[in-house]
C-alpha cells in the first residue's frame, strides 16, 4: 500500500510537471492542422506512454535476453554467471521439446481455423438487420468479455471425468460406453483446451468479420443480382474479395495472440498429462516457476522470439503494414 501511494504521488508529480510544461506551449494559439506549435509538442503528449513502455517493457525484455545466456537459478543466487549456449543445449536435449512444438502447432492451427470458420458463419448470419439484433449480439458476443480463467474453470468442470456433464450427455446419447478421462488422456486434454479457446474467440472473429461485411457497398450486390448471380458465387466473387484485407490482418494478429495465451492451459490441464497439452509459452511458465531456472526459461523465450520474429516479418510482407504506417 505505501508503494501505491508513493507511486500515485510520483505519477501526480510527473503529470503536474508535464502540465506546467504544456502551459508554456499554450501561450500562443495552436497553429493550423498537423502543424505543431513546437516540434516538441507531439512528442510531449506521447512521451508518458513511450517512457513507460521503454522502462517496463523494453528493459525487462533485454534482461530476459541476457539471462538466456546465463546460469540463472533463483535457488542458487550466488552461482549466477554467463554460461554461453548451455541453456540452449539443455533445451534442445529436452526430449519433450518435439512434443511441445507439435502441440503448439496443433493448438494454434485448430483454434484459429475453428474460430475463423464459426466467426465467419456467425457474422454472415448477423449481417441482415432483424428485430432484437442488438440484444442478440450483446448475448452472443459475451464470451469476449469473459476471463480465460473462468472459461477454463467451466471447461475443466464440464469435462471432469467423474462428475462432468459432457460424459453424462455422451453416455445418455449412447456415444460412449464408459466415462472418458478427458483431462487425463493424451490428445483429449489438448482437445478440451482447443474447444475452450474456440468458444472464447468466436465473438472476436464475428465482430471483425461483421464490421468488414458491413463496409461492402450495397450497390455491388444489386448489380450482381441484376446479372443473376447465385448465392454461392456471390460469396466467393464479391464478399470474400472485399473483406480479404481485414480478414488477413485479423487472422494473422489473432494467431499470435492465441499462440501467446496459455491461461486456459494452466487452468484446464496444467499442461498434463505428461506435457501432452503443453505449448511453448506454457512450458516456459512451468519451467520458470516450478524449478526457478530462469536461465533455461529465458532461453525458451529467445526461441519464442525468433519464431515470432520470423512470423512477424512474413506478416509485414503480406499486409504491407509498415509501408502504410497505419493501423
Amino acid at each position, binding site marked *: *500500500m505505501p508503494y501505491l501511494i508513493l507511486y500515485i504521488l510520483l505519477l501526480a508529480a510527473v503529470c503536474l510537471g508535464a502540465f506546467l510544461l504544456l502551459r508554456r506551449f499554450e501561450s500562443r494559439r495552436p497553429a493550423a492542422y498537423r502543424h505543431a*506549435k513546437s516540434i516538441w*509538442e507531439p512528442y510531449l503528449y506521447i512521451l508518458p506512454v513511450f517512457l513507460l513502455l521503454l522502462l517496463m*517493457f523494453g*528493459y*525487462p525484455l533485454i534482461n*530476459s535476453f541476457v539471462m538466456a545466456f546465463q546460469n540463472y537459478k533463483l535457488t542458487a543466487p550466488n552461482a549466477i554467471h554467463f554460461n554461453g549456449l548451455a541453456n540452449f543445449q539443455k533445451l534442445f536435449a529436452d526430449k519433450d521439446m518435439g512434443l511441445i512444438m507439435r502441440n503448439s502447432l496443433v493448438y494454434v492451427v485448430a483454434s484459429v481455423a475453428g474460430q475463423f470458420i464459426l466467426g465467419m458463419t456467425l457474422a454472415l448470419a448477423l449481417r441482415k438487420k432483424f428485430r432484437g439484433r442488438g440484444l442478440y449480439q450483446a448475448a452472443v458476443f459475451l464470451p469476449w468479455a469473459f476471463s480465460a480463467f473462468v472459461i477454463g474453470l467451466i471447461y475443466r468442470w464440464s469435462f471432469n471425468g467423474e462428475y462432468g456433464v459432457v460424459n453424462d450427455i455422451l453416455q445418455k446419447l449412447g456415444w460412449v460406453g464408459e466415462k472418458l478421462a478427458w483431462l487425463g488422456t493424451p490428445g483429449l486434454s489438448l482437445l478440451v483446451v482447443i474447444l475452450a479457446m474456440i468458444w472464447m474467440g468466436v465473438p472476436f472473429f464475428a*465482430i471483425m468479420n461483421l464490421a468488414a461485411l458491413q463496409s461492402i457497398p450495397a450497390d455491388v450486390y444489386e448489380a450482381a443480382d441484376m446479372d443473376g448471380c447465385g448465392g454461392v458465387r456471390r460469396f466467393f466473387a464479391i464478399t470474400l474479395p472485399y473483406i480479404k484485407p481485414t480478414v488477413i490482418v485479423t487472422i494473422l494478429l489473432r494467431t499470435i495472440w492465441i499462440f501467446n495465451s496459455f491461461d486456459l492451459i494452466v487452468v484446464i490441464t496444467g499442461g498434463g498429462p505428461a506435457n501432452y497439452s503443453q505449448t511453448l509459452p506454457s512450458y516456459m*511458465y512451468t519451467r520458470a*516457476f516450478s524449478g526457478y531456472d530462469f536461465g533455461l526459461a529465458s532461453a525458451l523465450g529467445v526461441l519464442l522470439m525468433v519464431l515470432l520474429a520470423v512470423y512477424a516479418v512474413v506478416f509485414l510482407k503480406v499486409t504491407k503494414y509498415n509501408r502504410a504506417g497505419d493501423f
Partner: protein
Amino acid sequence: MRRRLKRVLAGTGRVVLLALFLLAVVLPIYWMAITSFKTHTEIIDAQNVTYFPKVFTVENYNQLFSMYDYGKMLQNSLIVSVATAVCITLLSILGGYSMARFKFRGKGAMLLFFLVTQMIPGILVIIPLYLIYAKLGLINTRFSLFMYYLIVNLPFCVITMRSFFERIPYTLEEAAYVDGCTRMQGLRRIVLPVMFPGIVAVFVFAFIGAWNELIAGTIFISTSDMWTIPVGLKSLIGKYDVKWGVLMAGGVLALLPTAVMFAVMQRFVVEGLTAGAVKE
C-alpha cells in the same frame, strides 16, 4: 414460387443457425450457474448428474465469503482494475491525440514499436519483471500488478484512441482555436465530449484486461491478502478436495461485472475493437 420457397428456407436456416450459436454460448454459462446453486452432495453424485438443482441453495456463495474471504479478493481486483483503467484512459487520450493530429518524425517507428509489443508473449516480460520487482521490494503488492497491466494494455488502447480521434474532423477544433482556445481547452471542451464512445471503449478494454488476468497474478502475488479473484480461485483448485460449487460461485461473481459492462456498452466496445485493429 421457387424463389419464394428458397427465401423462406434461407430465412429458417438463419434462425436455426443463430439459435444454435446462442445455445452454444448459453449452455456453459448455464452449467456454471446451476452448479453454483447445488449442494455439495448433489454435485459429487457421479451416478445422477442433475440438470437443475434438486435443492436450491446459496450455501456455496456463503462459504465463498465466510471461508475463503472473497470480499478481500473482490476489493483487490477492483482497486487494481480501476486504477489501471483510469490511468490507461488518461495516458491514451494524450498519446492517441498526438498520434492522430500530428505528423512527426518517428511516428511510423513508434507505431511499429507498439505493434511489436503486442506480439511479445507476456510471460517473456513477467519473468525479468519479477526479478526487478524483487530488487525494488515490490513483490506481492497491488502496485506490481497495476504496473504490469498498465504496460500490456497501453499500446492497444493508444492505437484505438487514435482511430477514434481520427474520425473527428479537425475543423471542429480549429474553430475553437481561432476563437482563442488553447490546445488543452480545445481538447477538453470540444474534442473529448464527442469522444465519449472512444473513451468508454478504452476504459472497458483496460478494465477487462486487468480484471481477467491470471498469470502475472500467480507470479507477483504470494500472500492471500493480496489475491485478486483469479489468483484466489486458482489457489482453490490446487487443493486436494476441489469444491466445485464454491469455485463456480466464484466464477459467476467474477463474470458478472465484465458481463454487465459489456452488455451495456456493447456498441462502443464493438466499435472500439474494429477501430483499433483494422485499418479503415
